[in-house]
C-alpha cells in the first residue's frame, strides 16, 4: 500500500523542497546585505517582464530540457549520468563538424544533420562509460565524471590546434556559414503578427526540445523498451528474472541519455553562438541533474523545471547587472534544489508520510 497519495509525491514534495531552497536563498541574500523581495521582483521583471527576457529564459530552458531529459532517462534505469556536461561538449563538436565542413542548402537539412551528428557524438561519449558499467562493473558516476574532464581536454585541443582559423588567437572555431543559421523566435513569430524581441537567442531548437520530450514520454511509458528500462530501474534482479538483458538496457539507456545531452548543442552552439567556443555548455549538463530531480524524471516535470531554471538563469544575470549580488547566487540556488529534492528527499518525505498515515487512520 502506498503511504501517500500520488499527487503528494509528484507535486507536494518538490514544492516543499523548492520552498525550502527559496527560503534559504532568501537568507543568503539577506546575509550579504541585499533585499530578497526586491531581488525577486528584479528577477521576475528581468526574466519574464519583456519578450527579450522571455527569449533568454526560453533559450536557457531549451538547454536544460535536453540535459534534464538526459539525466531523467538514465535515472529510470537507476543510473546517475553526471557526464551530461562532457556529452554536451562532444555534441557541440558534432554540430561544428556538421555545420563547418558540409555546404548545406537550407537550415532545415542542416538542423537535421546537426541533430544526428550531435546526438551521435554525445551518445558515443556516453557509450564507453556505459560499456564499462555493463561489462566491467566500473561505477558509471566516476567514469562519467572522468569523461567530463577528458572531454574538456579534447575540446581544448581541437579548438586550439584543429578548428581555430589561421591568425585567430581565440580558441574557437570559425563562424558557421549563413545557411546553417537557425531562425530565432523573432523570425518565426513576426510572420504571425506577434512581436518578439530580435536580440533574444531563443530559437527553433525549443520546439525540437519539446518534440524530444514527447518522444521520451512515448519511449518510457508507451514502449516495450521503456518498460524494460523502468523494470531494470526498479529491480535489476527481477528484470533479469523476467528475461531482460541488463547489459543491453544499461547501454541503450545511456546511449539515449548521451544522445539527448549531445543534442543540446543545436541550441547553444548552432542556434546562439553560431560557432564552437570553449565552455559553450556553461554547466548546463550539471543543471540537468537538478532539473531531472525537480521534474521527478517525467518529461512534463522536466519542462516545468527547465523553465524555472531558465528563469533563474536569466533573472540571475539581471541581478548581477543591476545589484551587487553576483551571478553565483544561481549556483547556490541550484545546489539547494539538488540538495533538498535529491539528497535530503527523506527529510521532507518522512514527516509527510507520517502526516498522511495519521490522516488515513482517522478516516477509517
Amino acid at each position, binding site marked *: 500500500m502506498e503511504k501517500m497519495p500520488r499527487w503528494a509525491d509528484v507535486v507536494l514534495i518538490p514544492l516543499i523542497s523548492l520552498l525550502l531552497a527559496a527560503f534559504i536563498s532568501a537568507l*543568503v541574500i539577506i*546575509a*550579504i*546585505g541585499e533585499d530578497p523581495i526586491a531581488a525577486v521582483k528584479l528577477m521576475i521583471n528581468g526574466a519574464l517582464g519583456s519578450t527579450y527576457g522571455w527569449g533568454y529564459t526560453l533559450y536557457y530552458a531549451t538547454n536544460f530540457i535536453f540535459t534534464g531529459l538526459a539525466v531523467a532517462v538514465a535515472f529510470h534505469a537507476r543510473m*546517475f549520468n*553526471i557526464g551530461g556536461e562532457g556529452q554536451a561538449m562532444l555534441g557541440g563538436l558534432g554540430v561544428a563538424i556538421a555545420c563547418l565542413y558540409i555546404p548545406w542548402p537550407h537550415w532545415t537539412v542542416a538542423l537535421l544533420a546537426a541533430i544526428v551528428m550531435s546526438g551521435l557524438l554525445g551518445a558515443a561519449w556516453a557509450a*564507453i562509460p556505459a560499456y*564499462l558499467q555493463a561489462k*566491467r*562493473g*566500473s*561505477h558509471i*558516476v*566516476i*567514469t562519467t*565524471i*572522468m*569523461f567530463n*574532464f*577528458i572531454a*574538456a*581536454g*579534447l575540446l*581544448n*585541443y581541437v579548438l*586550439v*590546434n584543429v578548428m581555430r582559423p589561421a591568425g585567430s588567437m581565440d580558441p574557437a572555431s570559425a563562424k558557421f556559414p549563413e545557411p546553417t543559421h537557425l531562425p530565432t523566435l523573432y523570425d518565426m513569430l513576426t510572420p504571425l503578427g506577434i512581436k518578439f524581441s530580435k536580440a533574444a537567442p531563443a530559437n527553433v531548437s525549443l520546439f525540437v526540445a519539446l518534440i524530444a520530450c514527447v518522444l521520451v514520454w512515448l519511449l518510457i511509458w508507451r514502449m516495450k523498451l521503456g518498460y524494460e528500462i523502468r523494470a531494470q530501474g526498479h529491480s535489476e534482479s527481477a528484470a533479469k528474472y523476467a528475461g531482460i538483458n541488463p547489459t543491453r538496457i544499461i547501454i541503450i539507456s545511456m546511449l539515449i541519455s548521451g544522445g539527448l545531452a549531445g543534442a543540446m548543442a543545436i541550441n547553444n552552439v548552432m542556434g546562439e553562438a553560431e560557432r564552437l567556443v570553449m565552455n559553450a555548455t556553461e554547466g548546463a549538463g*550539471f543543471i540537468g*541533474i537538478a532539473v531531472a*530531480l525537480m521534474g521527478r524524471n517525467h518529461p512534463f516535470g522536466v519542462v516545468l523545471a527547465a523553465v524555472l531554471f531558465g528563469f533563474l538563469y536569466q533573472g540571475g544575470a539581471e541581478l548581477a547587472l543591476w545589484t*551587487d*549580488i*553576483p551571478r*553565483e*547566487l*544561481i*549556483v*547556490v*540556488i*541550484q*545546489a*539547494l534544489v*539538488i*540538495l533538498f529534492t*535529491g*539528497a*535530503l*528527499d*527523506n*527529510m521532507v518525505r*518522512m514527516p509527510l508520510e507520517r502526516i498522511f498515515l495519521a490522516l488515513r487512520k482517522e478516516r477509517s
Partner: protein
Amino acid sequence: MDFLTLIQVLDSTLRLATPLLLACLAGLYSERAGIFDIGLEGKMLVAAMFAGAVAAVSGNVWMGLLAGIAASMSLSALHGIASITFRGNQLISGVAINFLAAGMTVLVAQSWFGQGGRTPSLMGGGRFDGIELPFAIGPKDAALSDLSVTKLIEQAGPIQQVYSELISGHTILVYVALLCVPATWWLLFRTRFGLRLRAVGEAPEAVDTAGVSVVGLRFAAVAICGVLCGVAGAYLATGLQAGFVKDMTAGRGFIALAALIFAKWRPWYALYATLLFGLLQAIAVRFQNIEIGGFVIPVQFTESLPYILTVVILAGFVGKAIPPRAGGEPYVKEN
C-alpha cells in the same frame, strides 16, 4: 634536460601533489567507511576561501587554517546528515555540496572583500613560509652572500641540490601531508578504530551486531574527511598561492578521487598515485607541448592523463579496483 631541471620538476611535483594527497586521504577515510564522497572538490574550495579570508583579516595563517578546517567540516556535517541520518543518495549529496561551495565561496568573498570573488593577497604572517631544513641552502645563505637562492643551488653539488631544492624549503603542510600517509596506515590497519572503520564499509550489519554504532563510526570518518579536506584547501590558498581566487581547486578534488581509485583505497598507494598525478601537473605547467622524436604530445593530453588512467584502471584491464563493498549504501537497521 639537465639534472637541476629534473630536481625542480620533482620539487613542484611535491608541492602540487600535496593538496591531492590530503584530499585523497580524506576520501579514503570516508569511502573506507562506506560513504562515497564526490564532494571533496567543494570542501577544499570552501576551506581555501575561508582560510584565505581569515588569514587576510587576522594576518595569522594558523587562524586561516582553523577557519578552513571548520568550513570544510561544516560541509562534511551536511554530507553526513544527508547520507547517514536521512539515508539520502550520497552521490547526489556530493554534487550538491560541490555546487554549494562553488556558489557560496564567490558570494561570500564578494560581499566580504568586494574584489570580484577573491580574497586579498596574503603577505607575511598570512602565508605559510617554506621551512629551511638544517644545512640546506635557503634565503639566509642568500642574504650572507650576494647571490640569489636559485644561483646558489645552481652552483652546489648534486646531493646538496637534491637536499636544498627537493627536500628542504617546503611549507609545513607539505611535510604534514606526507606524515599523514603512515599515520593513516597505522590508524586504519593497526588500531581497533581502524578495523571497525574498515568493517563498517564492508559489512555494517556485522559491526552493528557486535554492538558498535554504525552511525557513529560513519560520522567519525566523514569528520576526519572534513579535517583533511580543510587542510588541503587551506594549503591551496595560504601555501601554494597567496590568497583565494574563484574556482581555485580547478578539479583537484576529482583528481584526488581518481587517485583514490588508482590507489585502490590504500594509503601508501595513495601517496604514489598522487605523486604521479602531481608529476603530470608539474610537467604540464613547465613544458606545455612535449616533443618526443618528432611526435608532439599536446599539453591537453598530459592534463587529461590522470582521468584517462583512472578510467583504464576502473575498467579493470590493469588490475581491478574494487571499492569497499557497502560503499554508497545507506545502512538500515533491521527491526
